């Protein structure tokens, strides 16, 4: 049995791998993982900028540092989780819309942005959902236009 790590993949193997990586579920999952990573970085930066909760000044310096770092870590993890969910929903819905329409234009991004914005704002009622949909759709349309304007 030849070593699968050192031989060239055959045509069938490559085709099967392409089929997996082109599927909507894989794209959504991969975007979720990437979103988690970006969210960690973003959360770290954001926690530095935001005003942190008051630290117990009576504790030793080492204790204070530990508390602050733990707080930064928690903020960063929560931000990472939000980013991961947002990226997964956006990527998954864009892939599904594109598969359904069989067209590749900006309306896929607009639709996916609307779904993502609406889902994330679900707790704030229908008006909040509409606002979230419009806002996120405009944002993702802008990004998509910018990325493809030189094609």
């Amino acid at each position, binding site marked *: 049995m030849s070593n699968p790590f050192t031989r060239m993949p055959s045509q069938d193997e490559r085709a099967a791998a392409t089929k997996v990586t*082109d599927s909507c579920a894989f794209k959504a999952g991969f975007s979720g993982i990437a979103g988690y990573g970006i969210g960690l970085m973003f959360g770290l930066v954001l926690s530095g900028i935001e005003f942190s909760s008051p630290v117990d000044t009576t504790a030793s310096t080492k204790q204070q540092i530990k508390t602050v770092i733990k707080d930064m870590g928690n903020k960063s993890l929560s931000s990472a989780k939000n980013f991961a969910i947002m990226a997964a929903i956006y990527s998954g819905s864009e*892939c599904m819309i*594109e*598969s359904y*329409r*069989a*067209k*590749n234009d900006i309306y*896929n991004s607009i639709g996916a942005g609307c779904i993502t914005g609406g889902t994330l704002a679900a707790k704030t009622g229908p008006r909040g959902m509409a606002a979230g949909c419009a806002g996120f759709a405009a944002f993702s349309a802008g990004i998509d236009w910018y990325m*493809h304007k030189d*094609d």
Partner: protein
Amino acid sequence: MFGGVFGGGSQKPAQSAPMGGMPGMGQGQGQMDPNAQLAAAEQEMEMVTDMFARLGELCNKKCILQRYSDEDLTKAESVCIDRCVAKYFQVNREVSDKLAKLSQANQ
């Protein structure tokens, strides 16, 4: 006329609208004469090639974007091509069924 194309021998249709649409019909099994078999195989090959060319041109025109920013097909394009091919064969099948019915009705 249309029913006898495959069984019929070396008659080459002038305007070849592909019949049936499925490659590899295997209709030449019952023929005894090797010349007739060869001619039928040639005809089938020509039909399949013609069908291939038309299908490729049609789906290319319909599905492939003019924006050549990437060498890989986008998801939209590959989905479109799958649907285009399936529809083409379906249309071929239905058209040949209708023609067969018409020719039977005429006889």
